[in-house]
C-alpha cells in the first residue's frame, strides 16, 4: 500500500447541503421564520414538540422543493411521505425530527459545474424536505460547560437537504459545486444562501481510493464547515490526512470529524456524539403527499432564468468573454446590476470592466444584499461612464470619482462639478501648458529628437502632472506631436 506514490490516489467527495427555505412561516406550524428575533420568541407547541399537537405541511415549502428539484433536473416522485428520525439531543425536544427517508420528494438529478474551463455534470442523488432544529449555546467552553442553553426559534424552519453523488474529485470541485448550487437556489429565490448565518450548511463525505479503482474507499464525514473558504480548507486538510495515513499503511476509520476553523484541522467526534440508530418510521401525524402533474408543470413553466442560462445569454447577447459572463452571473443581484447599467450605457464590455475591476473591489459579488444596496447604483455607474465617453473626465480621474461615489453615495456629475475635475479639453490652455513643459525639459526633447520615442511618454506625464490629471490625453498627445515635429 505504501508503495503507491503521492499521486496514486483518487479523491472521492460527496456533499450534503442543507438549505433553509425562504418561507414566511415554519414547515409544520405558523410561527415566523425571521432571523435575529429574541430567543424563544418565535415558537409554539408544534415546533416545541409538545405532546398532542398536529403538524400541517407548508405548501410553499413543497413548492420550493419542487422548484429546486426541477432546476437540478431531478425526477419528482409522484408520492412522497414524511418520516420520524429519532435521536436524543436537546436541540429537538420531541426527540425526533420530521424528515423524509424512503420516499423523498425528488431523486436523480444533476448540477453542472465548471472547473478549469471544463464543465462537468455532478449527480444529485436525492432532495428531501425536513424541519430544522433548535440552536444550542454552551455555557462557557464546550469542554468545561456544565449546561447548554437552547433557543428554539430555528426549530421547525423548513430545510431542504440535497445529497450529491460521490462525483466530486477535488476540494476545488467541491467548492465549485457549492457555489453553483448556491447560485441556483438564490436565482430561484428559495434560499438566501447566507452561509455565515447558517441558511446554507454543508457536510462532506470524503474518501480516497487507489487511482483507477472503482470500489469506494472508507468514507469520513466532515461537519461544521460554515463558509466556502472553510469547505475548501477542511477538505484539503482531510484529503491530506487520509493520504498520509494510507501512505503509512494505516486503515481509515469510518467516522464523523468536525472541522476546527480556528486551529485548521479536523478532529474525530466522540462516538457518543453521533450514535446513528435513527429508527425511521412514517410520521403518523402527516398524511402522504401525492404531487400532482399539473402543479409540477405550472412550477416548471414559471422557472426563472438560471445562472448557467444567464451566463450563456450574456456571452451571446452582450458579446462578453465567458469569464466576464461567469463573474457577472455569480449572483442574481450582480447580474441584474449589470443589465440595469448596460440599459443606460450601451457598451457592454466597458460596463463589465468597471464592475469587475471597481465595483467588485468594494463589494463581494456573491453577496446579494450587498450588491442590491450598492452605494453606487447601476444608474450612477452608467452616469460616470457617460462622463468619460463625452470627454468630461479622463478614465483615470473617473476611478477617483468612483471611489468618492462609493464613499458619499452621490452621483458622478455632482462630484465632478463640485471638485472641478472636468477634463481640460481647451486646446489653447493645453498648448500653453505643453510649451511650458517643453521649455522645462530640454533633455527629454533632445532624447526624443535623437530617436528615443519613449521620451514622449515622459513629456505626456509632465503635462498630466501639471494639469493634475485633468488634461484630455488624446488632445495632449496630438498637440505634443505637432509641437515636437516643429522643433
Amino acid at each position, binding site marked *: 500500500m505504501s508503495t503507491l506514490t503521492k499521486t496514486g490516489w483518487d479523491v472521492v467527495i460527496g456533499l450534503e447541503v442543507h438549505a433553509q427555505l425562504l*418561507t*414566511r*412561516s415554519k414547515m409544520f*406550524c*405558523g*410561527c*415566523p421564520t425571521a432571523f435575529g428575533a*429574541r*430567543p*424563544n*420568541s*418565535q*415558537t*409554539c*407547541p408544534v415546533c*416545541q414538540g409538545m405532546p398532542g399537537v398536529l403538524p*400541517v*405541511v*407548508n*405548501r*410553499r*415549502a*413543497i413548492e420550493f422543493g419542487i422548484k429546486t428539484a426541477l432546476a437540478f433536473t431531478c425526477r419528482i416522485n409522484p408520492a412522497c*411521505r414524511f418520516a420520524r428520525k*429519532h435521536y*436524543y*439531543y*436537546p436541540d429537538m425536544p420531541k426527540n425526533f425530527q420530521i424528515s423524509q427517508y424512503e420516499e423523498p420528494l425528488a431523486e436523480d438529478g444533476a448540477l453542472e459545474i465548471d472547473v478549469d474551463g471544463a464543465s462537468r455534470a455532478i449527480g444529485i442523488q436525492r432532495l428531501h424536505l425536513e424541519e430544522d432544529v433548535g440552536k*444550542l*449555546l*454552551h*455555557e462557557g467552553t*464546550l*469542554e468545561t*460547560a*456544565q*449546561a*447548554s*442553553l*437552547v*433557543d*428554539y426559534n430555528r426549530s421547525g424552519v423548513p430545510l431542504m437537504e440535497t445529497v450529491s453523488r460521490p462525483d466530486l474529485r477535488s476540494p476545488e470541485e467541491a467548492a465549485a459545486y457549492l457555489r453553483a448550487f448556491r447560485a441556483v437556489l438564490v436565482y430561484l429565490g428559495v434560499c438566501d444562501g447566507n452561509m455565515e448565518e447558517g441558511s446554507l450548511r454543508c457536510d462532506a463525505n470524503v474518501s480516497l481510493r487507489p487511482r483507477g479503482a472503482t470500489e469506494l474507499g472508507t468514507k469520513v464525514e466532515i461537519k461544521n464547515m460554515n463558509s466556502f473558504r472553510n469547505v475548501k480548507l477542511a477538505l484539503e486538510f482531510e484529503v491530506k490526512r487520509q493520504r498520509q495515513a494510507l501512505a503509512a499503511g494505516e486503515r481509515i476509520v469510518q467516522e464523523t470529524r468536525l472541522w476546527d476553523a480556528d486551529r485548521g484541522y479536523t478532529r474525530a467526534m*466522540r462516538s*457518543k*456524539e453521533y*450514535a446513528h*440508530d435513527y*429508527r425511521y*418510521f*412514517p410520521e*403518523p401525524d*402527516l*398524511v*402522504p*403527499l*401525492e404531487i400532482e402533474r399539473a402543479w409540477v408543470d405550472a412550477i416548471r413553466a414559471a422557472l426563472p432564468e438560471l445562472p448557467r442560462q444567464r451566463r450563456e445569454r450574456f456571452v451571446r447577447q452582450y458579446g462578453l468573454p465567458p469569464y466576464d459572463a461567469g463573474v457577472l452571473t455569480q449572483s442574481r443581484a450582480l447580474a441584474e446590476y449589470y443589465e440595469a447599467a448596460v440599459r443606460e450605457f450601451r457598451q457592454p464590455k466597458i460596463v463589465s470592466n468597471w464592475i469587475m475591476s471597481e465595483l467588485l473591489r468594494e463589494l463581494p459579488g456573491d453577496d446579494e444584499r450587498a450588491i442590491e444596496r450598492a452605494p453606487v447604483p447601476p444608474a450612477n455607474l452608467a452616469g460616470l461612464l457617460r462622463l468619460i465617453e463625452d470627454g468630461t473626465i479622463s478614465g483615470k480621474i473617473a476611478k477617483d470619482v468612483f471611489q468618492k461615489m462609493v464613499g458619499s453615495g452621490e452621483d458622478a456629475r455632482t462630484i465632478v462639478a463640485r471638485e472641478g475635475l472636468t477634463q481640460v479639453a481647451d486646446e489653447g490652455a493645453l498648448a500653453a501648458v505643453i510649451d511650458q513643459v517643453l521649455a522645462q525639459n530640454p533633455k527629454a526633447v533632445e532624447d526624443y529628437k535623437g530617436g528615443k520615442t519613449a521620451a514622449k511618454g515622459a513629456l505626456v506625464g509632465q503635462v498630466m502632472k501639471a494639469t493634475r490629471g485633468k488634461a484630455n490625453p488624446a488632445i495632449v498627445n496630438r498637440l505634443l506631436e505637432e509641437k515636437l515635429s516643429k522643433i
Partner: protein
Amino acid sequence: MITRQDVEHVARLARLELGDAEIERMREQLNAILGYIDKLRELDVTNVEPTSHAVPLVNVMREDEVVPCLSQDQMLANAPDRVGELFRVPRIIED
C-alpha cells in the same frame, strides 16, 4: 428472539435506565409482542399495500401564513430551568 443485549440497546436509545429485573420483564414482553406479529405474518398480504396511515387522506397542506406564536414567557414557563431568554439543559457532551 429479543435478547438481553437488544433490550439494553433499545433502552439506551430511549435514554431509559432499567434494572436487571426490568430488563428481563421487558425482554419477555417484547418477545410476546413479536410473537403476536409472527402470528399476523401467517396472513397472506401479497396484494395489500403497506399501511402507514389509517385515514384515506392525502395532500393536507396549509398556506404559508404566519399566525401568532405563544409568547416567550409562556413558552419559557415550561422550562424546568432557564437562563434569561434561554432554556437551560444538562450538559450534553459526555466523557
